[in-house]
């Protein structure tokens, strides 16, 4: 640390060389400062040397627009300087000094001193007060230089004035001067966070990359509901303080090899925090520091005499290429966050481009599902359901298709689970049911005998509290009685919350729907389910049918299942009947209903119409 020279006799020939020395020393000192308090310290030292007998007070402008006296030199003068500061604010001297920006002092004849703003042309940082000193004009130049230097250094730490080197569309132009702090936590807000990220990525190099972390408080909504918003707010504040402590810790700085002003911490959503770490010298240590951060957050919080252990997931993305757009970086961090959340409580993940293939497929599919709903790209195909003994058409199963798309996306086994994850399944289900109803209206006009359509209900739907009222409303609007709709559920759809599922199944049956257990025999708890759930019947999985009549074991299993269900008086539909032999076997062993390529493939409604017409023509040859 360079030592500040002491002031020689005033107004002597030594004055200017001394002032220049002092300024040079101060520049060197300021360059080593990493904090605002460091800057104030350096400034205080310099001013103390410039005006040795004087009292020097430095006030900083706080977020609430008040000036707080933070430095007093000598320390014993603190009470006196504090009183004087209050008086000078009251008397309007502060206001006058602020009007004098840039860089001119206001003299205080009564107090025998001066007041000068600590400011750059962009931003006011504080006020410097010097009392009881023989003040000569020639000092003013040196004073001005010192204050300018300090203010410029403060500006370097200030995220508000960090310049953005590229224009971007995230901040609306009309915002003017955006609020830069989140009121609740005191952290930077989202807009400023993006600003910082832009600046950081624009200057990043591959050997000193930028990392973005997104922290998600998983249970804020539930905490607010159970404990009240006040406690939820307190929790957010505490999380913010813990994040700040860790982000400014020796461990994090040393491990990553970064300095304090390469970090920006923000609240970027109601239950989300963001951290930008720039100029990372040791990026391979990123996971160590995230684990360290998570350690501090996962130990739980004591709020209002309750111990809370909320789960906080962290997703991170590293940017090694300055050409990576900020939005992409944020999206990557968000993808990592989802991965982390899927891994369980208090997990973190760092984005890997290897995920990209499946991830981009997901994003593509998500927007495709949206398009398909909007533009009516979904189609329903119908597969005949046959009463085996009489070989009579009694209904059809509706199957969702997305024609006109290629590749894996078009496969229901892919896009339905995806729609369940994105929540789009709810909209899709409603569309499916309405289409079925409209189809049924046409078909019931053609076929006089009872004819129903079955469809698969998703797990999301089965656990909705308003499932039954919702279905009834649709049927009422479409003028279709519930008994024509058969709902198929699977063991996996039930598993999420069995009680809720049972309640809904009871309500569905009560409302007049039939409920079938699909894919019977593939899970582990099937028999238990049959016992517990008020089912209309079961659909025997194609796995049991596939090898029928080719293996004695398979035959025995199918026989015993049919035996059990017969004793329980549960009707059975055999799925996936593909050969005549299978058909005969099932017929012989008393299986009631069947479905499969041998009996009829899934076809478009038009083709199904044509088949119906043929059935009808066979039944009463006189018509048509």
């Amino acid at each position, binding site marked *: 640390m360079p030592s500040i020279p002491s002031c020689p006799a005033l107004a002597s020939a030594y004055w200017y060389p001394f002032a220049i020395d002092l300024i040079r020393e101060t520049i060197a000192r300021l360059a080593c400062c990493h904090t605002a*308090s460091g800057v104030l310290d350096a400034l205080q030292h310099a001013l103390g040397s410039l005006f040795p007998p004087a009292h020097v007070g430095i006030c*900083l402008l*706080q*977020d609430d627009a008040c000036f*707080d006296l*933070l430095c007093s030199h000598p*320390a014993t003068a603190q009470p006196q300087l504090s009183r004087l500061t209050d008086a000078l604010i009251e008397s309007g001297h502060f206001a006058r000094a602020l009007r004098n920006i840039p860089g001119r002092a206001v003299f205080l004849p009564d107090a025998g001193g001066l007041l000068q703003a600590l400011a750059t042309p962009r931003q006011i940082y504080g006020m410097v007060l010097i009392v009881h000193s023989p003040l000569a004009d020639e000092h003013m130049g040196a004073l001005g230089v010192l204050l300018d230097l300090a203010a410029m250094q403060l500006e370097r730490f200030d995220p508000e004035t960090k310049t953005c080197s590229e224009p971007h569309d995230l901040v609306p132009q009309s915002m003017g001067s955006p609020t830069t702090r989140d009121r609740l936590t*005191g952290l930077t807000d989202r807009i400023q966070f993006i600003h910082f990220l832009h600046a950081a990525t624009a200057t990043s190099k591959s050997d000193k990359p930028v990392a973005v972390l997104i922290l998600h408080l998983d249970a804020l909504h539930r905490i607010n509901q159970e404990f009240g918003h006040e406690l939820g707010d*307190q929790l957010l*504040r*505490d999380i913010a*303080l*813990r994040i700040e*402590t*860790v982000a*400014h*810790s*020796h*461990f994090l*700085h*040393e491990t990553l090899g970064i300095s304090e002003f390469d970090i920006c911490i923000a609240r970027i959503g109601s239950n989300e925090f963001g951290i930008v770490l720039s100029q990372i010298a040791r990026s391979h240590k990123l996971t160590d520091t995230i684990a360290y951060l998570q*350690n*501090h*957050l996962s*130990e*739980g*919080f*004591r*709020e*209002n*005499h309750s*111990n*809370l*252990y909320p789960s906080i997931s962290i997703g991170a993305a590293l940017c090694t290429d300055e050409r990576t757009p900020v939005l992409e970086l944020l999206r990557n961090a968000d993808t990592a966050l989802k991965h982390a959340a899927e891994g369980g409580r208090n997990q973190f993940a760092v984005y890997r481009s290897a995920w990209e293939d499946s991830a981009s497929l997901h994003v593509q599919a998500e927007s495709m599902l949206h398009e398909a709903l909007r533009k009516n790209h979904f189609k329903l195909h119908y597969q005949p359901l046959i009463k085996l003994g009489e070989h009579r058409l009694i209904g059809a199963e509706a199957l969702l298709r997305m024609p006109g798309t290629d590749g894996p996306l078009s496969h229901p086994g892919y896009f339905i689970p995806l729609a369940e994850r994105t929540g789009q399944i709810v909209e899709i289900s409603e569309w499916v049911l309405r289409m079925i109803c409209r189809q049924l209206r046409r078909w019931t006009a053609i076929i006089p005998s009872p004819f129903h359509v079955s469809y698969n209900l998703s797990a999301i739907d089965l656990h909705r509290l308003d499932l039954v009222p919702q279905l009834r409303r649709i049927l009422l609007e479409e003028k279709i009685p519930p008994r024509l709709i058969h709902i198929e559920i699977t063991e996996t759809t039930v598993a999420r919350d069995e009680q809720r599922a049972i309640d809904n199944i009871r309500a569905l049956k009560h409302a007049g729907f039939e409920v079938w257990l699909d894919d019977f025999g593939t899970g582990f708890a099937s028999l238990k389910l049959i016992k517990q759930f008020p089912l209309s019947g079961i659909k025997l999985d194609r796995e049991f049918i596939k090898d029928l009549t080719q293996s004695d074991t398979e035959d025995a299993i199918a026989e015993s299942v049919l035996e059990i269900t017969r004793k329980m008086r549960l009707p059975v539909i055999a799925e996936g009947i593909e050969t005549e032999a299978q058909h005969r076997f099932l017929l012989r062993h008393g299986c009631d209903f069947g479905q499969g390529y041998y009996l009829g493939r899934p076809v478009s409604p038009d083709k199904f119409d044509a088949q119906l017409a043929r059935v009808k023509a066979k039944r009463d040859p006189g018509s048509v």
Partner: protein
Amino acid sequence: MTPSNIIDRLDELPSLPAVYHRARQVIDDPHAPLQALAEIIESEPSLAARLLRVANSAFYGFSGNVGSIHRALTMVGTDDVNDLIIATCVISTFRDLPLGAVSMRSFWEHSIACGIASRAIARRKSWDQPEICYLAGLLHDIGRLAMYILEPQVMGDVLLAHRERRGHMWILEQQQLGCDHSDVGMELLKFWKLPRVFQNVAASHHGAVPAAAISPAAAVVHVADIMVNGLRMGSSGTRWVPRLDDAAWEQTGLSSEDLGSIVDTTVDTLDEVISAFLDPYTE
């Protein structure tokens, strides 16, 4: 609120484990064999495991050679065993309680760092009992832990006010609660019947007593506290580096050239010792 208010409630805090009191009895008995102490510690497997981990950490410099409690006691030495047991018991007692804005982990990081830096200073100045300085440093802010647990709301306000730069933590504590963590810390250590030297350090580590009354250990902890706060090794809540008391600095006999090696020693051992005390067992 009066100072006595929070101090009267110290019995609401979790108490030190029974094994600690049994161990103290044996330690205080000059005729008791080392094996007796080893058996008492081994009767509490979690304490024994913790103790072995700490004994094997870089802090004691035996580099993983301590296989049994008996051996740990022999190698660490009888003088230091007491401190090792106190540190392990105190940290284990509070380790798993959740706090508010200051995480328990970050509190102990600060305390352990201060302990290690205090010991490094004492060794640098060739004091007789560097272990005393270590434990004194480790316990210097313990009053704040009691305040976080007993008055979470008020301490939340204090932290917020401090973050808004309204003053040093201990001044805000006095404003809100009528006493600060040095008062509470002293009373708590007295309540636990720990030796007076630790009580004194907790009471005077901010240098807010007449210079002549600062004990050598308090002076060392005062300087160590400033160093680890300045380096931001953990945090017990404060964001400001406390003011260096000139008298305390002079009493330590340190010169600024000494600081580099003290910081190096602290940085080198800190992570491992923290992990030994705080992290779940990996075996």
